């Protein structure tokens, strides 16, 4: 029996959402981290997951890539249940703490993770050159990652996530603490990737990054305040900037205080 969730061959990719969840609950140590989230993330777009530190962004991203135990609900990526072994080639994940080997050079990191992703030897050199150029890491290939600056380290983590040319990229706060010029360049790259068909989910707690996303998920205390495009967020709240929109939505979600 074919599960309805599995994409029939030949169906255009855009017909399947990049990710979807229904009534997703994660509880940890008696605390509710994700409180019944239901959402759809469109493919080929940059979706921003915006909310304050500790609101559950990282847990949600971990649930998406299938490394988080979930208490209830369903999560699907590219039409497959999260954590399905077939997704391991198709989803790229960059954690907040970079998760690269600091006691290896950049080239050694890329070669190892490239081998893990099963990149053919012939394709590997091309993939490395493309990523090193894209992330402006040229000249750093033979330096130990442990000697990198914060910005270089963040890009090294991204480089590994981009290695396998995944269909879906899940990036946890990839631009935090970076130089504004570098941040602008990274957002430009995210949009280039999206234009080429990659779906991206990017988290941030910095509201001025919200405007750079195609779609927004505003998150607070394990729940969504709203899911819309930046323009819709402003229109819905009659505000001039997304920070005010967030505040307006946050106060509406607390009827007890009104």
């Amino acid at each position, binding site marked *: 029996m074919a599960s309805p969730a599995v994409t029939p061959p030949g169906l255009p990719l855009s017909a399947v959402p990049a990710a979807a969840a229904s009534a997703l609950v994660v509880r940890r140590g008696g605390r509710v981290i994700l409180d019944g989230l239901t959402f759809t993330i469109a493919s080929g777009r940059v979706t921003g997951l915006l909310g304050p530190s500790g609101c559950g962004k990282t847990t949600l991203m971990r649930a998406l890539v299938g490394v988080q135990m979930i208490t209830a609900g369903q999560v699907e990526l590219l039409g497959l249940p999260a954590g399905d072994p077939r997704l391991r080639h198709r989803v790229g994940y960059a*954690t907040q703490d970079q998760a690269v*080997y600091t006691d*290896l050079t950049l080239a*050694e990191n890329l070669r190892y993770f490239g081998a893990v992703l099963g990149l053919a030897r012939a394709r590997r050199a091309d993939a490395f050159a493309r990523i090193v150029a894209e992330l402006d890491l040229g000249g750093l290939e033979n330096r130990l990652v442990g000697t990198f600056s914060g910005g270089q380290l963040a890009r090294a983590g991204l480089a590994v996530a981009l290695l396998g040319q995944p269909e879906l990229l899940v990036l946890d706060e990839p631009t935090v603490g970076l130089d504004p010029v570098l941040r602008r360049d990274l957002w430009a790259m995210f949009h280039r990737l999206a234009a080429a068909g990659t779906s991206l989910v990017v988290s941030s707690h910095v509201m001025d990054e919200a405007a750079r996303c195609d779609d927004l998920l505003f998150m607070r205390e394990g729940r969504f305040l709203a899911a819309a495009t930046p323009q819709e967020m402003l229109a819905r709240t009659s505000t001039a900037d997304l920070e005010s929109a967030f505040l307006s939505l946050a106060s509406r979600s607390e009827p007890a205080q009104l």
Partner: protein
Amino acid sequence: MIAAASNVAAPVRWALTWATARRVLEQLRHDPRTIAMMIAVPAVLMILLRYVLDSPVALNRFAPEFIGVFPFVVMFIVAAVTTQRERARGTLERLMAMPMGKLDLLLGYAIAFGVVACVQVGVVLAVSLTWLGVQLPGSVVTLVMVAVLDALLGMSLGLFASAFARTEFQAVQFMPAFVLPQALLCGIVVARDQMTPALRWLSDALPLSYAVDAMQQISTGASWAGPVNRDIGVILGFTAAALIGGALTLRRRTR
């Protein structure tokens, strides 16, 4: 995609195993001080032992046992700390989100540490047999093999123990907690047949006892005799059990 799906059932994918072994060795290569200590410390301790005992008869008896215990202890610490780091730095989580098999990862570690153990045992053995004049009636090949198996045993127990360490400090503390009781009960300090029944029983249940017993057999001239084979079997059994235990502690999904 079909190829990817068929990968799931494959028990070991050697490309991933080799890549992991190479990566672990590259990490060590960038840390020459650790390599120097791993290689030199057992040899230096052996030299110290030679002068502390100051008796060729006693040295001939103790040297093989120590050659069996050093790699076990060193590999236990190195493996416990390396794996704990892998967990704490998020690289394990990244690998688990990638098409990396748990067995591929563990065998990669085993190969890399096995190579290091060979060098370590080779150096301490060369120093012992030449400079220190240790006489070995048994087979050198058997001794090296048992010593490398001891190293792999220490490595697999270290991997397993690291699952219960939240910090590198804790991982290092497991050395005295896991290893020192075994060192006391393995038959070096007191012969096993002179222990009280309860201690003897405990000694029988601990893997290092078999490592030391094998070395004692070899040092008295028995090479491929039954007792050595039995000891090797027990060491391999403990290693396999610890690796399976280690694989079970590598979770794809965590809380």
